[in-house]
């Protein structure tokens, strides 16, 4: 089992955090999110993203609005709610804490 496989559960768990981060920066639609993730270790597919986004919306973390696109029918653009931004702050703080723990353990 290589490192990539070992950490698949962690990557999956972190996807929600990354989505909060991406959506916080700008209003995006799904193809934008996929493009941003595609170059990273977190490359993912619509099949995973749509159910995840819909759950986050159900939990009140984000919302969407319909916007006309240059070509073809309107698209769903996602944005964070206040609750989503709050959750992003908490997750970032927690992530920093974990990062600190990983670096400091076994150092002394």
């Amino acid at each position, binding site marked *: 089992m290589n490192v990539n496989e070992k950490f*698949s*559960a962690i990557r999956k768990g972190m996807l929600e955090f990354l989505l909060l981060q991406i959506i916080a920066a700008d209003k995006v639609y799904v193809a934008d999110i996929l493009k941003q993730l595609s170059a990273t270790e977190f490359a993912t597919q*619509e099949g995973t993203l*749509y159910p995840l986004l*819909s759950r986050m919306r159900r939990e009140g973390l984000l919302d969407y609005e319909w916007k006309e696109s240059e070509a073809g029918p309107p698209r769903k653009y996602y944005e964070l709610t206040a609750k989503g931004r709050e959750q992003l702050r908490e997750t970032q703080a927690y992530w920093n804490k974990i990062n600190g723990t990983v670096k400091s353990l076994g150092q002394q």
Partner: protein
Amino acid sequence: MNKVITIHLDGIAYQLEEAGYDLLRAYLETAASRLQSNPDREEILSDIERAIAEKFRALLNSRKNVVVTKEVSDVLAEMGPIEADTGTAPGHDAGSADRPGATAEEQKAAPGAAPRKLYRIQEGAMLAGVCNGIAAYVNIDPTLVRLAFVLLTMLWGAGLLVYVAMAIVVPEARSSEEKAAASGDPFTAQEFIRRAKEGYYEAVKNFPDGKTRREWKRRFKWRMRADTDRWRHNWQNYWAEQAAMHPGLGFALPMLSVLHGVMAILWVCALVSLLGTGTVFGLALPAGLPQWAAALLLFVAYGILISPLKAARRVCYWSLGRPKWTWSFVFLLEAIVWLGVVAALLWLASHNSAQLREAIQAIPTLVHQAADDVRSWWQQK
């Protein structure tokens, strides 16, 4: 030349090659079934349709207006399998730690790796393909299933009835996806056969002396049969004497048939209810009693309950020894009663086809469980 099918996605018509259409439909059906318990199911499905439509649109231009099968398959691979997002409960995440690793393989295995389903299979079928479908479903030789049906018909006459009911209820595998789903994932089937074989050798090893055991089994069977015959004989004689004294008893035949028929219907309903829901008409099974044992008990209980009725009916036939015109009336009534029973069963089957399918689909799991239980029982000994 390929047949083209027109579909509507997100309000726009697209033309797909037939095989591509089958792929797309299988993908969407799998998605719908995986999102079964998701409250946003409809919305996610329309999101997915919209995303697929957008990808199709990018492939087409003024000179190219048909999406070919290869393109459909590429688009679906790009979409990736629909993962039912059930929240981030820690227990769940730990349990599905190997899921994302598996998704890469799922993509290669083409979209729509649907769970195995029960279908009728026309290729190589003798009649309606029911036996063929069952054989593919539990992965055994169709000839064995056909033999089982013939035996059922000869012994209790139930095989034919079950066959007709299944020919009506079970859908036919038409598309290539349905055909693949009919035989399901070959790995699990092979695994089951391997385990079954292992269990068999395990059991054989435990016989202290094969010869004595066989001899004992043969005698036991012979004794059982002799007892049953004697018992039946006595019973019939008793009723025959009664009948000789009261010739009017012959008219009891249709009454007995009605009782027999009602019990048969009740029994079938109980069996379907047990297989489908794990309870008999809402009554939970006693703790510790596995479902397959309960199903066996139902068979035995039915046999015991019905045997006096059967014996009584046979005696009635006997007592009608001399043909009289009145008997033809009795037989007519009898025939009407049984037609009624068959009609009632077919009516029940067509009105509860969902439960019936569920019950039939529960059978292989039940057989697997029984095999596993028996095997572990053997190993404990």
